[in-house]
């Protein structure tokens, strides 16, 4: 599996650290609704197909990347800097989220 870092170019997956599901959105720290926090901590979309995820180019430029990757084929269709684009925006994200 290769991931094309926007800064470093195509690199082997072993250079990257998986940071998990990029669909999760941290609730407002001031909120105290247990259900919202429970969903944030434990619930995952886990789709079979295109998946929004965060990887860090830990063995390279160390940038955090917003990646769209297919969980059935491992094909990477989009890689962008997470700092510029927030979480990736494939599919199920609620409208109104940052692009």
């Amino acid at each position, binding site marked *: *599996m290769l991931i094309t870092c926007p800064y470093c170019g195509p690199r*082997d997956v072993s250079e990257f650290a*998986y940071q998990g599901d990029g669909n999760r959105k941290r609730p407002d720290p001031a909120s105290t609704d247990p259900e919202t926090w429970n969903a944030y901590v*434990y*619930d*995952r979309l*886990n*789709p079979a197909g295109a998946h929004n995820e965060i990887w860090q180019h830990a063995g390279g430029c160390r940038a955090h990347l917003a990646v769209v990757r297919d969980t059935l084929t*491992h094909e990477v269709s989009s890689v962008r800097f997470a700092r510029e684009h927030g979480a990736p925006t494939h599919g199920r994200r609620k409208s109104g989220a940052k692009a």
Partner: protein
Amino acid sequence: MAEYSALSLLKNALSGNRDWKPAWRKASPKPSYDVVVIGGGGHGLSTAYYLAKEHGITNVAVLEKGYLGSGNVGRNTTAVRSNYLLPQNTRFYEHSMKMWENLSHDLNYNVMFSQRGVLNLAHTPGQLDDLARKGNAMRHLGVDAELMTPAQIGRRVPGLDMSRSARFPIYGGLMQERAGTARHDAVAWGYARGADRRGVDIIENCEVTGFLRDGDRIVGVTSNRGEIRARKVAVAVAGSTGRVMQLAGVDKMPIESQVLQAFVSESLKPFLDTVLTFGMGHFYVGQSDKGGLVYGGDLDGYNSYAQRGNLPIVEEVMSEMVALFPSLAPVRVLRSWGGVCDMSMDGSPIITTGPLPGMYLNCGWCYGGFKATPASGFCFAHTIARDAPHELSAPFTLDRFSRGAVIDDKGQGPTPRLH
């Protein structure tokens, strides 16, 4: 149906093995059942078997999208053990161990359960202390565990690099002698045959494509072989849990699907009569009765529904094997494969009523569900028959996450790839 005995072996040998009967019927789906079990893996089949055997519920179908054994029940590395730290896990897996000890008799099917032991190695004094703590926790609940010295380990496992100059010197280990391995296909076939004999329909090449509803209630499934109604629908699809629950409109679960790879080497003369785990990475190895080394390591570590992994893990697993056994460096890999594991957020399984009315769910087995096959089916059948958890699986209901009652044996938190 075929009964297996020394006499029947002899009779069939004399008649050229032409008269063996198929172990289970090729059933076609009926319009409705008392219970439909989705998934013909180890857990779905054992659930059907115990529904019939323990609860007298025989109007049951097991729906399998491929052939029996095409999922993780036929992909695992067959280690069976009950060496956990937390009492909920220890009690559940020890119950399973006791069922394994009698399984071939119960099924009249040789599952080749071999109690050759599982030995966890420690490579630092701190790690050895940790294993001693775990061993004490196990013995406290009546489970066997022995702390072994390096000298004992060197005698038990010749070929291990026991030198002080090893990259990760061996300080000792924790042995569970009653642990071991079983033949995974035989477990699927034996349960299938046992369930079939009690009247259960086992329907292969039957993929569930949706759920039938009456208001909120699940009242059956749609499949590539038509609609099948059921009073109760039980889901036991392991790595496919996310996909199947999405068909029921449950979009989010405390599960991530991740791929785990396994490897078999060319055959070697017998030299390893236990299952060994490395403590400084993630590597374990046993030797099959045919002589091949059966081994594996860590998950690939990202979401995947592909039954194949990537090369970095291959390299890591091989290097860990050679660190332990330098003499194995020239041994060739014969085959490798991957299986999709239903990784839960605390590393423990889910056996529960719901989450929708009329539905029952069994999942979250991570990469350790083979050893659970008997107890999982036993407890899940109880849950389905009585609409209440069995005492042994009561800690494993789905609501434990929102209740703050997670069962995290390794203390890793909700990061599935670390469990």
